[in-house]
């Protein structure tokens, strides 16, 4: 073990640690420690800033280790600039752009330092691009990567797109039909979620969690509840853990099914589009049968869940889910046997394993590029400590792989939900968590339907949130979508985009 490695605190992924036990390193040791940790299998789950004085910002890093389920944590103090990690560690690039935008700290040497959400710095008087406090900041008004040449043209799309979909701006550098480069510029959905969470928890905290990415309400709310439970040292009842797992997998089933339908629609294959459009609703309605809301609002709360599933309700759910799962299976099979579909899916929007690992991609997208990564298995919490949902992957990294992995996961999640509903453990639904530990650091990971959701909370002396960091899987994966478009036909953009189906608001917060 090198000296640098020893400077990181390694902790089990469900534990909280005292803030003062986190090694505070000098910046060069901090960089070396991170690089060394990554070389030994670590991956950045969170890298963020927290102001400690008007002139100083403390950077925290949390690296996750799939081999033993541990998290390495370290911190360093910086002023208005520090040597960027990105040239040595590409997976840091989006985190460093966020740090620059939020706190006005320049990662010097960052190869493409631009805002990601287009808002003023949270540290008054410090701006990474030397903009004055009074200057208007307009979304996507910035320099874009440009390819020059006689026959190169640029295509700009958005923020408002053609479908019923969230806003974002896409800038293509094209040579005829061929895309040389795509740059995605977001921030249109920025609502100031993280900033509003500081000082909490309070009565608005849960609604923020349930709506920060509204198609992932169960995923994000579960991540938050695990933070509170870790800080309060509270043990969730087993029955609640199972019901959370059921709700999380129903969320995955609904979204994966919807995605298969939308992918079919994007290649003009209407049968599967129509069937999956309906079947997605069957899974949402199953969630509504449990908690009254199709998106799982008011289901998960700190200490447990709000709604019970008795024998009768479990039987009702199973009676709906079994035929729905069979119908999804049949609808998906049509995709795999239709050559016109396969001709569009195969070899389109390829992301290699090397690129996926270099950029730290997560979830379905990573697994479709043969990166074996799943929080449910690598960093299990709740019911996943006792029940393994097999991790599904595919090696080709194209639209086909991202579709096929979804179908494989639908089968595993469906099996999990049916098994759990058929054997729900006895017990209470919820306990009341006590006060949160003061001056502490807590990290929580959940495998949402898009991939790894990471929440980090730092508490102050009173146990309130001094900082709350949210890393939605989309924050990691948007750059994967940009890479997938390289050398593709621009007409395949909708298909590629749908095969990622990333969240705009989950990124923009």
């Amino acid at each position, binding site marked *: 073990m090198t000296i640098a490695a020893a400077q990181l605190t390694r902790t089990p992924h469900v534990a909280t640690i005292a803030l003062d036990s986190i090694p505070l390193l000098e910046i060069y040791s901090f960089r070396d420690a991170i690089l060394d940790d990554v070389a030994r299998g670590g991956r950045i789950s969170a890298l963020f800033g927290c102001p400690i004085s008007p002139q100083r910002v403390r950077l925290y890093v949390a690296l996750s280790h799939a081999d033993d389920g541990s998290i390495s944590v370290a911190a360093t103090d910086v002023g208005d600039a520090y040597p960027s990690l990105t040239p040595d560690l590409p997976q840091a690039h989006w985190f460093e752009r966020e740090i620059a935008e939020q706190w006005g700290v320049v990662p010097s040497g960052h190869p493409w330092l631009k805002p990601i959400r287009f808002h003023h710095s949270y540290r008054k008087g410090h701006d990474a691009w030397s903009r004055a406090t009074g200057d208007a900041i307009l979304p996507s008004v910035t320099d874009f990567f440009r390819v020059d040449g006689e026959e190169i043209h640029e295509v700009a799309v958005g923020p408002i797109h053609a479908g019923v979909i969230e*806003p974002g701006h896409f800038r293509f550098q094209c040579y005829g039909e061929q895309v040389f480069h795509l740059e995605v510029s977001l921030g249109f959905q920025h609502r*100031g979620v993280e900033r509003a969470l500081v000082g909490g928890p309070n009565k608005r905290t849960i609604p923020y969690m349930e*709506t920060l990415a509204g198609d992932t*309400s169960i995923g994000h709310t579960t991540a938050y509840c695990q933070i509170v439970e870790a800080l309060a040292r509270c043990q969730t009842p087993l029955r609640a853990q199972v019901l959370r797992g059921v709700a999380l997998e129903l969320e995955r089933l609904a979204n994966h099914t919807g995605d298969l339908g939308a992918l079919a629609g994007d290649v003009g294959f209407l049968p599967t589009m129509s069937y999956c459009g309906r079947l997605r609703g069957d899974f949402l*309605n199953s969630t509504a049968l449990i908690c009254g809301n199709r998106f799982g609002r*008011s289901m998960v709360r700190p200490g447990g869940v*709000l709604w019970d599933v008795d024998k009768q309700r479990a039987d009702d759910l199973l009676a709906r889910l079994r035929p729905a799962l069979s119908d999804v299976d049949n609808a998906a099979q049509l995709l795999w046997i239709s050559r016109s579909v396969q001709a569009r899916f195969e070899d389109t929007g390829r992301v290699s394993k090397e690129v996926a690992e270099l950029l730290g991609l997560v979830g379905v997208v990573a697994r479709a590029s043969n990166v074996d990564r799943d929080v449910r298995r690598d960093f299990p919490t709740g019911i996943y400590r006792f029940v393994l949902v097999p991790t599904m992957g595919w090696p080709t990294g194209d639209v086909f792989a991202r579709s096929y992995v979804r179908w494989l996961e639908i089968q595993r999640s469906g099996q999990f939900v049916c098994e759990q509903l058929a054997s729900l453990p006895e017990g209470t639904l919820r306990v009341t968590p006590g006060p949160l530990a003061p001056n502490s650091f807590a990290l929580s990971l959940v495998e949402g339907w898009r991939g790894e959701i990471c929440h980090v909370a730092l508490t102050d002396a009173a146990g309130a949130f001094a900082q709350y960091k949210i890393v939605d899987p989309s924050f990691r994966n948007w750059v994967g979508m940009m890479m997938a478009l390289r050398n593709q036909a621009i007409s395949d953009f909708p298909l590629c985009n749908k095969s990622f189906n990333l969240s705009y608001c989950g990124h923009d917060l």
Partner: protein
Amino acid sequence: MHNIIRERMRQGYRTIAYPKGSPQMPDRFRGLPIVDRTKCPDGCEMCAEACPTDAIRCEPDALEVDMGRCLFCVECQTACPAGAISYSGEFRLATRTREDLLTDGRALKLAEQLDAKTRRLFGRSFKLRQVSAGGCNGCEADVNVLSTVVFDLSRFGIQFVASPRHADGLLITGPVTENMRLALLQAYEATPAPKIVIAVGACAISGGPYIGHEEVHNGADQVVPVDLYVPGCPPHPMTILDGLLRLLGRLEEPGSGGPGGRAPALHV
């Protein structure tokens, strides 16, 4: 081909009968709040304190829920020691004015249909441009679902189109973030008059959970005039469908407005 046809037969006909039949909502569905001031213990304001979006006005002589802010969560219901607030399974909630979303236990004034002149224009063909302006993809998803075979929105002549220039109106979701304000205004201006604006969801009506954030504008009507408010977080697809049909005068039931109806907001 054989497989596709066989699967088509197996999947069957799935479009709901609405508006001829009545939909079956899940038993735990939270629709129109039931408010009973007479049950309130003296000086108790626990519901109002518990409400995440301050949607409840609790005063000695009044107990009122603002459905424009309401997230239809369970906090007030859980907090109230006397059961003065609960939820019904009533999914019909859309109104024409912001004030009509305030409910104190009396019958809700549901959306009136458009006036005869506007109805002649839009009653049988109504094209909408959807703009998400900070929406969380909850409202967007349940608007999108209306185009599936289950609801089959196009059988009513209602469709979502790709350009505001092809549209008869806008359907807005989200609290209107500062970063979407200009794009929304441009989409609004690009929509030819006469035009209809529909705000779907607590965020688009009031800002929802994001009320008061400096990053947002507290709802669509702070930026453009709104003709139809569809409350919920997100509203159930039935609530949105009911609102759209009610607006167009496609529901044959008493109380949906006389033949005269109500003109859209002045959009110039």
